[in-house]
Every structure is written in structure tokens, then in C-alpha cells.
């Protein structure tokens, strides 16, 4: 085969084995022809003729008019008639033929001398001549054959077929009459079996090469076709019934493909194990008998302290499990709290593991009523009772789904249920509360929901992360295969990546696309158009912040999406503001100026938006933040914390504001200043004013002047509602602390520059108390004091007040209407009588006192005017407590 003239023919190489067999079968076929060169010419002549006959025959067969030759045609030729439909098959024989043709065609041009020279030399000259003649003759003949194949073939064929087997007259041999389309009658010979067999043999032998080729080709083709067919059939057969099934049982795919065994779970292995292990810890209390035998010595345990799995040894494992279980044999944590983003399979995990661990899952979710009462009932029925109807008589395992939406009292009840039983233990179990004897699995999305705070402390927190993209993709491919949906691997992985671990969303998308498109092919566009990933994807603020500060080569557009998803633009702006200084080296403040200009724009827009309630520019807010990214992003990772400064600032500001407003509210109306005056002038200087310099700490030894300063301090404090309050310090000592703490407002930084020593503080405090009493007294005696027009009350300001009081009085006299108003007041004489009626037997006493008061009032009419300031006649006079006694 090595000297085969067409080594580059692929097909032949492929079917080299078969060709070999063919060669063996047909020693006279083209292979021999090729080998002709070294062979003696005569032999080659002999062998070549059947071959040519052969090849041409095959063509001939095709050319033969079929109607007449049908019965005559050999079965082999029938097979060959198929061949033209197959292109490759056509090629092979033709190439074979061509080679032969080329070979023989060449012969005319070939100098046989040159070719045969080496052999010639060994032979005699006569022989050479003879050989040459023969060769030439043979070449001519061959050429003739090739030139006029049909004539030769006809000669061959007719001798065999037509002339012998067909006749227009009624033949002598056995025949079958046939009628032509023209009406001519033809008689076809019936052949004897032997002769038919013989002819058959000869023809099959002759055409076997083509037949085999054809066979292999057809076979190959059939195989390919069959494969294709099988695929389409598979799809057709699978998709059709499933569509029906879908229509029939309206089952969500999510439910349909819910994992049914542990191995099907998509969540992370440590998570699954943690929960399962915790469930097994209940075995001792729930399935009393089984546990002791079942108690596994060696296993991977989840250590809660480390939050990891440790493959523990036998001896170590036992020790490790001990703290997990309390003295009742119950796990240390009574509740497992599963938390994670929606759609990752928390509920599925809980249900499946509960079933695996031998419980009957009882679910209570947000759609059920969750008032405290209903919740208590549910817990009681789930944990204390056992289902009667259940065949297996399995114990319950309560699954509280979506517990972060439950009201706080409900969660508190749950916590009480767990902890109270834990503390009371066996002793009280007979009385009211029985210890919790069934596992409770709580499921939430947001672990840090406020209502969950009490529960977090007493529960085993298991974080369920999203399924990894690879596993999710594999699962999606599986689902698609089952549903008869064609999905290529990259589409599946794209969908999985898009879903970000949300199994439910991914499967829903599959189902949705299928229902919508009604075609069994899922392509990239479907995934890209799918509304997941953008729907309620919640990016945390920190993610957004991180994105702003890091270069993202892969997807520059992702930043805006992330910011949009995070929301909380204000907080984000704060975060950027807090971290931008450390983001990049910025010697010339270009980055700082640029960033701040964006932040200022953000601030302006957001406050404009909130002020005018016009949200037309709202979409510009994330853009402002995103453009900070172009300045700030760097490749070096940096620590970015949650923005706290602004919040902290706000908190302290509120605290200080409250101090100022306390002072403002408390200060007496006569000194009431505007808030800004308090804040900028009075309070900052107040500590200096309230720190008198005394020579000695003991007030008793103070001079009169010093005492006076202390009194001034005290009365100033009274004016502004400041107070020294005794507070017990950590060492058990009592110290006087200013209340409200003006020093905080007055001074920046923690240290207080000016602070009176304790003794002075005490002195001031004492003096202030006296001052308060004095003022109250004055308030009580206000009317008499006023009647004497301030000259008693304020000795220090007496002169001035006197003068002013004088002018006031003068003015009052100047206004005649006031005086006219006074006169009708004399009718007030009636009012004491009214009082008399009210007070019954006390009347004479009060009357006596009043008789003292009334003449006073009447005597100085100007004083009486001061009573009259209100428009309410009820306050006409004072009634002292002692008057009533």
C-alpha cells in the first residue's frame, strides 16, 4: 500500500483496513494495475482489461436504460445506483478511474525506453524489441478502450444482455412479454437460476469495490444521520410530554426540582453540616433510645467558637461536643437561626435536613398570623405535641420562616420560651413551663433586623451563602435537560453568574423563558434580558463604597449599577468624603478639589431636590458619586470603613444643642436671650464667670466682697437655670457637677480650662440653693413686694428700678384711661362676699385678713392697677395658704 499512487486521499487512509481487505479480495483490481510498472507488460495487459471493464461497467450500469433492464440488472448495480446521491462515493471511484486514466493516458507519451531501461539491459535485444512492440500494442489498445468506452462496453453488454435476453419476436426461450410505452412488445427472457447466479457472481465481484465503498460511506452517513436523528428525536420526545406535564400540574420549577436528598443541596457543605449536626444534638432528648447507640464518636464537628469545621479525633471529638449540650442533654443553642439572601435555599435546607434528621417539619411563615398569642399556640402545639395523623409518628421540628418580619414581642416570646426553660430546667418543668424539647429553626434574611436582636444572642447563627456559580450552572443545565430546554454551558454559567447565588430566581428565569418563548433553545440574549440581577438586587453600601475606590477593568459600567442598587446616596457621599484623602497620593490637592467639587454638586442637588420636592435631577446624584470614582479609583486595596463621622457628628451636635436649649428654656424670662447670643457669648464665657477666685477654700473665712461674688455667681446660675448637682463618682466620692453641662458647649476638646475647685463649687451650690429659696419666697410674696415697687427685692438695683418704677407710674398717670378703668374695680367689694360663700366657716378669718389687704389696695390705687394686668378678673387678690387654715 505504500506505493499507492494517491496517498493523500483521505478517505482511503481512513478506510485503509478495508481497502486492504478489498485488495485481498480482488487481487486483480486497480492495486495491481498500479503495480503494473515493475511487472512484465504482458501480465499487466491481461489484468488491466478486466479492471477497465470493471470500472466502465459501473458507469455503464448507470447509463443503461432502466425500464428494459430492470430484471436484468444485477443487484450490485442497484446498490450503485444509489451512489450518485452521495458525493463522496462519487469521488472515490472517479478518482480511481482517473488515476487509471492518467496512468494509461500517460502511456502514450511515456518513453517506455526510459522507464524500462534498467530491466532492458538485462534482456536480449530481441526480447527488448518484442517487449517494446507488445507494450506499444497494449498501450494502443488501452488507449482505444479509454477513448471509446461505451462502444466496448456495449459490445460486452449486448453480447450478454440485450441480444440474448430481449427479443421483439416471440422467442424460443422462456419469456415474459412486456409492453413498451409506445405499444411495442418486447419479450424478456427468463433465465435459469444457475446462469443468473453466475452472472450475478461476476457482476458482484466486479462491482464489489464500489459496493464496499458505498457501504462504508452509507454506514458512516447513516451513523451520523442516526445520531442527529436521535438527538432531535430525543428533544422532541422529551419536550413534548413535559410541556403537557407542565400544563397539567401547575408546579413551579423551583418546587419541582427542589432537592430531595442531602447530596442535592446546593448550599455550602459546612453550612449543611452545621445545621445537621445541630439537629443531631437534639437526638438525645428527642429520640431517647436511639441516640446512645447512635452517638457518633468520630465526625466532623462544627465548633461554634471557631465557626469552622474541625475533623476531630475520637477522643477529642467527645470532649468537644460536651459544651454544645447543656445538662438536660439539649443543645446549648435552642434555636438555629438561618440567615442569608433570598432564594439561596434556606427554607429548602431547613425542611430537608429536618426530614433527614427524622423530624416532621412544621412551618410557620409570614403568611400565618404572628401575633403573640398565635405564636404561642403554634410553638406549643409544635414542640409539645406529636402529630397523630402522621404515619411515621415523627416528632415535630418547628421551622419559623421569615422571622425577621415578625413583631418584636413575638420574637421576645420565642426567646423567653427558649431561655426560661433553659434556666429553670428540670425543677420547674412540672409546673408551668416545660423545657423546649424540639428543635426550632428560624429563618431570616436580615440577621441584623432590630426585632431579631434578642434572638441572636441565644441562637446558633448559620449563615447561608449563595450557591456557587459553578454548581448553580450545573444544576441549571440539569434542569434544562430534564425540561427539554437546550442550554449551552456558557449560557448556563452566565445565568448562574447573573443570579448571584439566587437559585430560585435562576430557575424561575428558565421556566419563564420557556413559557414565553415556546422554543427549546435558550440563548445568551434571553439571559441578558432576564430581569434578574437587576430586579431586587441589593448591594450594600459598603460594596458600593468599595467599588468607588477600586479600579474595575472588567466592567466599568458596573459601578453606576452598584451605586444605584445601593441607594443611600447621602451615606455614600459621606463615605467617599471620609475616605477620599487616603485613597491616592495627592500632593497638590487636585484630587481633593476635584472630588470635593463633585461632592458639593451632589450636596447641592440633593438638598435642592428635597427642598423643592422636585425629583427631576435625582438621577444625577449617582452620577456625581460615580464620577468621583474616576479620580479616586486605585488598584491598591485599602481599608474602607462604614461612614461614621457624619453620624457621630450629628449625635454630638444634638447632645450639645440639647444643652443649649435646656439653658434657654430654663433661663428666667427677664434675661432670656436669643439662642445665638447664648451660644456664642454667654455660654462660652459662663465658666469664667462662674469661677470666682477666692483666697481660701473655706467660705467661712471669706471676706464680704468674696461672699458677694459667690452670691452673684449663684444668682447668675439661677438666672440661667444652671445647677451644681452632686454626683457620685466611680471612687465613691461625691462631686459637684454642673447641670446642664455648659462646659461641654463652652470648650472645645475634652479638657476644661476653667473649673472651680470643689470647695468653691460646694460653696456656690449652697449659695445657689439659698438663692433659689430666696427667689421662691420672693415669688410667693410677689404681690406685696411689687406693691412696694421693687425697692425691697433688689437692693443692688434699687436706685435704678426706683427711678424706672417712678417713670412707669408717671406714665400710668399720664394715661387717663387707665385710671378710669380702675374705678369700676371698686365693685370688687362684691367678690369677697363670693369668697365667703365658698369657704364656709373659714369666712371670718379670711375676711379679717382681707380687711387688712383691701384697705391697702384701695389706698394706693396705682398698685391696684398692677393687679389688673390680666384680662381675667379671677386673679384679683392673693389667698395665702395660712389664710385658709
Amino acid at each position, binding site marked *: 500500500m505504500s506505493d499507492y499512487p494517491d496517498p493523500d486521499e483521505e478517505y482511503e487512509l481512513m478506510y485503509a483496513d478495508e481497502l486492504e481487505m478489498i485488495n485481498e479480495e480482488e487481487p486483480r483490481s486497480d492495486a495491481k494495475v498500479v503495480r503494473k510498472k515493475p511487472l512484465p507488460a504482458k501480465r499487466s495487459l491481461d489484468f488491466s482489461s478486466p479492471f477497465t471493464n470493471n470500472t466502465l461497467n459501473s458507469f455503464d450500469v448507470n447509463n443503461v436504460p432502466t425500464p428494459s433492464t430492470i430484471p436484468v440488472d444485477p443487484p450490485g448495480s442497484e446498490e450503485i445506483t444509489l451512489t450518485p446521491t452521495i458525493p463522496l462515493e462519487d469521488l472515490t471511484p472517479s478518482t480511481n478511474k482517473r488515476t487509471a486514466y492518467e496512468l494509461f493516458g500517460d502511456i502514450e507519451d511515456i518513453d517506455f525506453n526510459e522507464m524500462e531501461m534498467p530491466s532492458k539491459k538485462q534482456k536480449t535485444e530481441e526480447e527488448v524489441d518484442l517487449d517494446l512492440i507488445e507494450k506499444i500494442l497494449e498501450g494502443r489498445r488501452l488507449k482505444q478502450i479509454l477513448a471509446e468506452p461505451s462502444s466496448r462496453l456495449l459490445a460486452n453488454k449486448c453480447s450478454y444482455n440485450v441480444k440474448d435476453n430481449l427479443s421483439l419476436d416471440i422467442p424460443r426461450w422462456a419469456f415474459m412479454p412486456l409492453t413498451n410505452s409506445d405499444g411495442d412488445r418486447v419479450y424478456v427472457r427468463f433465465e435459469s437460476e444457475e446462469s443468473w447466479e453466475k452472472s450475478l457472481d461476476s457482476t458482484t465481484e466486479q462491482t464489489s469495490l464500489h459496493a464496499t465503498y458505498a457501504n462504508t460511506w452509507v454506514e458512516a452517513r447513516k451513523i451520523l444521520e442516526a445520531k442527529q436523528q436521535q438527538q432531535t428525536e430525543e428533544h422532541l420526545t422529551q419536550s413534548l410530554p413535559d410541556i403537557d406535564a407542565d400544563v397539567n400540574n401547575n408546579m413551579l420549577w423551583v418546587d419541582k426540582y427542589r432537592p430531595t436528598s442531602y447530596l442535592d443541596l446546593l448550599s455550602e457543605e459546612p453550612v449543611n453540616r452545621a445545621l445537621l449536626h445541630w439537629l443531631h444534638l437534639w437526638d438525645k432528648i428527642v429520640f431517647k433510645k436511639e441516640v446512645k447507640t447512635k452517638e457518633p464518636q468520630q465526625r466532623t464537628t462544627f465548633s461554634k467558637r471557631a465557626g469552622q469545621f474541625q475533623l476531630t479525633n475520637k477522643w477529642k471529638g467527645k470532649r468537644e461536643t460536651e459544651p454544645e449540650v447543656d445538662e438536660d442533654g439539649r443543645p446549648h443553642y435552642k434555636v438555629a437561626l438561618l440567615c442569608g439572601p433570598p432564594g439561596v435555599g434556606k427554607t429548602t435546607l431547613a425542611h430537608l435536613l429536618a426530614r433527614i434528621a427524622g423530624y416532621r417539619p412544621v412551618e410557620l411563615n409570614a403568611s400565618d398570623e404572628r401575633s403573640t398569642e398565635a405564636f404561642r399556640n403554634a410553638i406549643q402545639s409544635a414542640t409539645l405535641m406529636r402529630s397523630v395523623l402522621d404515619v411515621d409518628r415523627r416528632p415535630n421540628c418547628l421551622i419559623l420562616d421569615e422571622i425577621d418580619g415578625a413583631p418584636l414581642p413575638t420574637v421576645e416570646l420565642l426567646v423567653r420560651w427558649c431561655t426560661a426553660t433553659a434556666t429553670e430546667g428540670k425543677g420547674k418543668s412540672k409546673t408551668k413551663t416545660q423545657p423546649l424539647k424540639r428543635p426550632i429553626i428560624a429563618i431570616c434574611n436580615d440577621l441584623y433586623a432590630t426585632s431579631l436582636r434578642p434572638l441572636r444572642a441565644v441562637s446558633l447563627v448559620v449563615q447561608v451563602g449563595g450557591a456557587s456559580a459553578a454548581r448553580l450552572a450545573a444544576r441549571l443545565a440539569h434542569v434544562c435537560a430534564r425540561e427539554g430546554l437546550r442550554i449551552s454551558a456558557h449560557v448556563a454559567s452566565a445565568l448562574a453568574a447573573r443570579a448571584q447565588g439566587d437559585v430560585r430566581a435562576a430557575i424561575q428565569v428558565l421556566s419563564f423563558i420557556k413559557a414565553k418563548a415556546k422554543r427549546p433553545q435558550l440563548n445568551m440574549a434571553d439571559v441578558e434580558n432576564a430581569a434578574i440581577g437587576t430586579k431586587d438586587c441589593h448591594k450594600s453600601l459598603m460594596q458600593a463604597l468599595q467599588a468607588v475606590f477600586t479600579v474595575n477593568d472588567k466592567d466599568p459600567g458596573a459601578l453606576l449599577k452598584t451605586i444605584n442598587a445601593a441607594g443611600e446616596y447621602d451615606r455614600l457621599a459621606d463615605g467617599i468624603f471620609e475616605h477620599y484623602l487616603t485613597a491616592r497620593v495627592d500632593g497638590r*490637592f487636585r484630587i481633593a478639589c476635584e472630588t470635593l467639587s463633585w461632592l458639593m454638586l451632589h*450636596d447641592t442637588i440633593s438638598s435642592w431636590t428635597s427642598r423643592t420636592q422636585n425629583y427631576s435631577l435625582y438621577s444625577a446624584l449617582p452620577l456625581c458619586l460615580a464620577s468621583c470614582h474616576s479620580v479616586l479609583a486605585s488598584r491598591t486595596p485599602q481599608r474602607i470603613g462604614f461612614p461614621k463621622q457624619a453620624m457621630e457628628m450629628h449625635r454630638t451636635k444634638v447632645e450639645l444643642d440639647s444643652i443649649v436649649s435646656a439653658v434657654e*428654656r430654663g433661663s428666667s424670662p427677664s434675661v432670656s436671650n436669643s439662642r445665638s*447670643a447664648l451660644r*456664642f457669648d454667654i455660654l*462660652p464665657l459662663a465658666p469664667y*464667670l462662674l469661677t470666682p477666685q477666692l483666697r481660701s477654700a473655706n467660705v467661712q473665712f471669706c471676706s464680704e466682697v468674696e461672699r458677694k461674688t459667690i452670691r*452673684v455667681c449663684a444668682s447668675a446660675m439661677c438666672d440661667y437655670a444652671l445647677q451644681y448637682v452632686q454626683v457620685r463618682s466611680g471612687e465613691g466620692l461625691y462631686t459637684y457637677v454642673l447641670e446642664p453641662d455648659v462646659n461641654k458647649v463652652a470648650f472645645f476638646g475634652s479638657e476644661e480650662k476653667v473649673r472651680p475647685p470643689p470647695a468653691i463649687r460646694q460653696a456656690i451650690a449652697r449659695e445657689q440653693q439659698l438663692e433659689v429659696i430666696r427667689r421662691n419666697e420672693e415669688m410667693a410674696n410677689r404681690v406685696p413686694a411689687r406693691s412696694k415697687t421693687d425697692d425691697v427685692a*433688689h437692693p443692688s438695683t434699687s436706685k435704678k428700678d426706683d427711678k424706672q418704677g417712678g417713670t412707669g407710674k408717671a406714665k400710668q398717670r399720664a394715661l387717663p384711661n387707665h385710671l378710669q378703668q380702675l374705678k369700676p374695680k371698686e365693685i370688687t367689694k362684691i367678690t369677697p362676699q363670693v369668697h365667703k360663700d365658698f369657704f364656709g366657716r373659714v369666712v371670718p378669718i379670711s375676711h379679717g385678713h382681707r380687711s387688712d389687704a383691701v384697705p391697702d389696695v384701695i389706698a394706693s390705687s396705682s398698685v391696684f392697677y398692677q393687679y389688673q394686668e390680666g384680662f381675667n378678673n379671677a386673679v384679683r387678690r392673693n389667698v395665702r395658704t395660712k389664710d385658709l387654715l
Partner: protein
Amino acid sequence: MSLWVDKHRPRDLMKLDFHKDQAVRLKSLVQQSDFPHLLVYGPSGAGKKTRIMCLLRELYGSGVERLRQETMTFTTPSNKKVEIMTVSSNYHIEVNPTDVGIYDRVVIMDLVKNVAQTHQIDSSGQKEFKVVILNEVDDLTKDAQHALRRTMEKYVATCRLILIANSISRVIPAIRSRCLTIRVPAPTENEIASVLQLVCKKECLNLPPELALRIAKAADRNLRRALLMCEACKVQQYPFTPDQKIPEPDWQQFIRETANIILSEQSPKKLSEVRQKLYELIIHGVPPDMIFSGLLKELVRNCDMAMKCQVASHAASYEHRMRLGNKPIFHLEAFVAKFMSIYKKFVEESLGDAF
């Protein structure tokens, strides 16, 4: 009434220490029967409130000084209850509407209505109107100011408004045109010094004139502050000495320190240090515009003329933007960063020239 500021506050228009011609005009205003709405404006510590109280006393007599403090409650349209503290006598009521923030409009409308409608019982002898004093009118929201203009006209028969503001630039023109605007300029340093001397004489103390002038300078033409500082001086050390240390409000010092930090070094690290200082100032309730002006005043001292203009214009533009925005810290820091970049460039250039 024990601090000098309160104790020695003049009660009569004729007893005022400065702006005496204005006092005369005010007095004649009262004597005419036609008393308009007033818009009194001037810097803090110039004596606006003192003048108004004198005016009221002139109007109603000493009954105005019988003050009481009460808290009023208003309900906003969104059913939120806001409380506001009022100081009132029988003849007037004083309120600071900005205390309730964005709900000031509700307060103004309800309060003025209440006052205007409940006065009418006996109008025979006295002035037939009550007075409503509104503080810090320039900080009112635009809504509140617009609410005010209608009310001012509607209830003019029964109540008069006296508006107090630091500057009328933020009072809408509609209100300005409805009021008689009275400007109370800050007293000069000499005037302050003389007032200090007067008060010390009343207190029987001996104040050296140098110290009085120093205090007046340090007080930034704010009489209230000057009096408080003087009293603080007295408490700290009585026999006054001319070179005595004058206690100063801490926030003033703090702004100065901040400016020094900015000038000392220009680097992002310093900037973050400055930010903490700015935060501290804001926490203590120092209004950002005061921080701006304080910083500018200190910073500009170290600049040459060309730079001064540049810095001042930047300060103005940043302050303007701050007013549009909500987070003063951004704008303050932006100004500081801008200044640092300008200053650093300037310093480097001048150093480059030197070598």
C-alpha cells in the same frame, strides 16, 4: 438679673448709651399714633433687643417687663406636634420660629392669628394692637416669609410685628417693603469702652481705660460679649491691670488655631486634621458662615494682595454653594483644600524664585 449684661441693660429709650438720635426718632415714632411694622437689623450684640424692649416699654409701660415663659404647641399639616418656647407679656409675645426648623411657617401663621384674634376684649384705653416679636427672621424659610407677608397685612389692625434680623439680605423684599427698617449698627470700640467704664462705675469698680479698649477690641464690636468679658475679667482677677488676660470665647480661639494648622503645612494629612477641627466647630453650633469668615480673616493675613483676592473670591463662592447645599462640612473642606492648593503652589513658586 445678676450678670452685668442683664443687670445694666437700659430700660428706657432715653437712657441708651449710643445711637441716641435713633432713640429720639423711635420715641417720636411711639408718640405718633401710627406705629408701623418694624424690621430691626444689625449685627449681634449691637443692642437691637434692648432697643425693642425700650420701645415696648415706651408703648405699654412697665407691664411689658412682666415676662412669662411658656411653651406653645402647634400641629403641622402632617399632624406632627411641634413645641416652641415663647416669652410674652400681656402686650407682646416673642418667639424664635427658627427653633422648629422647617415648620416655622406653621408657627408663624398660627401664632400671629392667635394673637391677632384674641386681643379684642378691652381695647378701650390702651393701644389697640399687640406686638409680635420674631427673632432671626433672616433664617426663616422662604415659605414662612411668604406666609408672613399676607398675615402682616391682614391683621394689621390688631397686631404689629417687630422682626429682628442680623442682615436683611435674606429677608424677601416683599417683607422689607412692608416694614419700617431700622438699622442698629454695631457700636464702635470707643463706645464700647465707654459703656464698660460706665458699668464699672455703677459696680463701684475701677477699670483702666487700656483694658477697656483691649476688651472692646477683643469683643469684635459686640457689646454683649464685651460686657461678659469684662465681668469675666473681674471674676478672674479683681484689681484690674491693663495687661490682664482677657478670657475669650473658646470657639474664636479654635477658629484661629484651625487657620494656623492650615497655614503650617499643606498636606492631605493636615487636611484630615483640619476636618476634625471643622467638625468640632460645627458640633458646637458655630454657624458655617461664621467659620468661613473667621477662617478667611485669619488666612488672608498671610497672603499677598493677588492671593488675597483669589482666596476671598473662592471663599465667597464656596460659601454661596454651601447655602445651596445641606452639608456644610463638604464646602468648608473644599474651601480649605482649595486654599491649601493655592497656598502651596504660591509657596513653591516663591521658593523656586528664591533659588
